[in-house]
């Protein structure tokens, strides 16, 4: 892709050219008796990349469609900047949108697709061609202007879709699972391209809907985790990953081992708590509002567990290896710790332990977090096919 950046001069009569955030104020969307989005409140800062992350049916796409104007909230308000757009028709919102299946107009050439929004907003004819060229250069598709969408690969079509959305210089860019239709290799490449685009266009506020934690962690300044039509947690990618506020977030943003523990002692001054797991006492740095005697879930990321003791890893748990998987860049061990299965991702081992071996797993206090206990919550949560060492 070319790294040329479109100039900031307004060219279209459509979108306002000022930085603009998004505000959801207690937005509820219901279809008949079915609530698709419940009391959703969220502020997306101007120029921020906010990922809406959640499983299917969590309401993330409904939230995005509400911003675009394709669903009308049953209650609540949506603001773009200071403007209440709750009941503004989609064509007046000045929003760029990229969807999973590209949605390029099949009967139009690439250049006509990119020019569509400019023509719709009645931009002066003399400005359309240069702007189209500029946007196609931005996404590295300048040489494909005369092609039809069906003559392009999936990745190329998605680039054109992004150029088309950017051509109108939108206040807000909505990306609805834009990489889901691409294969793994293309997806990785496009992820880097979107990250680069945002670096080059820092004023564009991006709302990025995905169910892929890697996409969210890679791109987003902040992540809003959603489940069952509600906002579960919101925070920076690192904060949600390192100190997940809830069990759902712990398991959805990255992989997590969740072990039931009882709080023995909390030292506010040292920011450290002592918890009991079976016959072992462990140190935990992030303990929230836990008090001695409370039952909690201890959250440790698989990659934070090491077979060797390293500096700062004062905690150790022991267990029996139940399975060993070699995954190229890492070994994944499944270890039975007092009846709970723990997953540990290790660097590739010359002589990995075999099933039945007793192993000690070390981890540092600052790599562990205490979460609210949930009835029947013992055990671990991680997708079986997740990539070790990545999340």
């Amino acid at each position: 892709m070319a790294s040329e950046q479109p100039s900031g001069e307004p060219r279209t009569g459509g979108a306002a050219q000022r930085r603009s955030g998004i505000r959801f104020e207690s937005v509820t969307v219901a279809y008949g008796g079915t609530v698709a989005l419940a009391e959703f409140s969220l502020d997306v800062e101007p120029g921020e990349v906010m990922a809406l992350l959640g499983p299917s049916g969590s309401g993330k796409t409904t939230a995005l469609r509400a911003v675009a104007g394709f669903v009308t909230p049953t209650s609540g308000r949506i603001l773009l900047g200071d403007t209440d757009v709750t009941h503004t028709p989609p064509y007046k919102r000045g929003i760029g949108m990229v969807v999973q299946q590209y949605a390029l107009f099949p009967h139009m050439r690439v250049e006509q697709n990119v020019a569509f929004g400019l023509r719709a907003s009645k931009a002066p004819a003399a400005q359309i061609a240069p702007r189209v060229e500029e946007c196609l250069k931005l996404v590295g598709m300048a040489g494909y202007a005369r092609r039809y969408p069906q003559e392009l690969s999936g990745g190329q079509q998605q680039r054109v879709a992004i150029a088309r959305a950017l051509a109108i210089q939108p206040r807000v860019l909505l990306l609805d699972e834009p990489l889901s239709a691409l294969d793994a290799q293309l997806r990785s490449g496009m992820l880097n391209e979107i990250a680069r685009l945002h670096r080059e266009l820092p004023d564009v506020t991006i709302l990025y809907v995905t169910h892929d934690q890697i996409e969210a962690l890679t791109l987003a300044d902040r992540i809003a985790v959603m489940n069952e039509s509600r906002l579960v947690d919101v925070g920076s990618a690192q904060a949600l990953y390192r100190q997940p506020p809830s069990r759902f977030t712990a398991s959805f943003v990255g992989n997590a081992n969740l072990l039931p523990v009882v709080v023995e002692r909390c030292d506010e001054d040292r920011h450290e708590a002592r918890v009991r797991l079976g016959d072992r006492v462990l140190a935990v740095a992030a303990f929230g509002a836990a008090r001695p005697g409370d039952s909690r879930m201890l959250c440790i990321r698989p990659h934070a567990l090491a077979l060797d003791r390293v500096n700062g890893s004062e905690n150790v748990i022991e267990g029996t290896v139940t399975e060993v998987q070699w995954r190229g860049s890492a070994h994944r061990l499944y270890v039975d710790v007092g009846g709970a299965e723990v997953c540990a991702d290790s660097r590739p081992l010359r002589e990995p332990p075999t099933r039945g071996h007793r192993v000690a797993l070390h981890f540092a206090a600052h790599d562990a977090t205490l979460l609210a206990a949930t009835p029947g919550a013992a055990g671990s949560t991680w997708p079986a096919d997740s990539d070790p060492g990545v999340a």
Partner: protein
Amino acid sequence: MATLPIALESSGRASPRPVPGWVLGIVPLLVLATIFYYPLFFIVRQSIMGDAGPASLAAYKAMVSSALFHAALVRTIEIAVLSTLGCLLLGFVLALIVSFVPFPGARIVSGFIDTILAFPSFLIALSFTFLYGSAGAFNFVLMDLMSTNEPPIDFVYGMWGVVLAEVTFYTPFVMRPLLAAFSQLDTALIEVASSLGARPMRIVREVILPEAVPALLAGGSLCLLLTLNEFGIVLFIGAKGVITLPMVIYGKAIQEFDYTAGCVAAVINIALSVGLYSLYRFALARGGGGRAVAV
């Protein structure tokens, strides 16, 4: 290889010989010839040979030079074109509403359209005379309201009555392929267009209409063919002075017992239909017929 028949014979399990392709091909040809080409051949022969022969194009000359034929040809094409345009316009608008404007009962409306396709065309003509005829329901109410003895609505028994009846009857023939095409249209196209600032009319014009062209071609061509040959509606409405080619055929062959002239008019009508059909196939092939939805 020479031993194979012996071996087969000795085993007594010779595999059945495959039926030659030409045998399979001739069966449908024979059926077609019996029920279609043979009668057609007689019509063509009658138009050229007359009742006693010899072969001559005199009947064609007489027909083509007659004022009746000229008027009928022009009127037939006029009604067919107007009806087709009406069907395309109404069908497109109705299909848009049914497909893209959410309203309760859309599925019922869609089903009702299918039902109309099953009706005989003269039923529409009959209902038109009941509704809009000089003694029809509308005129009855209007005459009462306006305190007049003259029926205010007086278009049914003319060309516009025929056109309106044909539009009413044949619009579903345009709607059906359009509804099928619209159901295949990715709604994301419409949503993205809208987010890019396109108002509904622009979306219809630049996004939906191009996608509907094959279906419009298919439905419109079918309409044109059917309205060109429409007989029941014209006959039942009994419009004064509205003589179409099928009416000429009927008049010559059945009312005047002039079979030769009737057959000449029929052959010309067939040539017109086949020519239009060829144009339709050509247009489909050139205009993205691969996406056309057959009725």
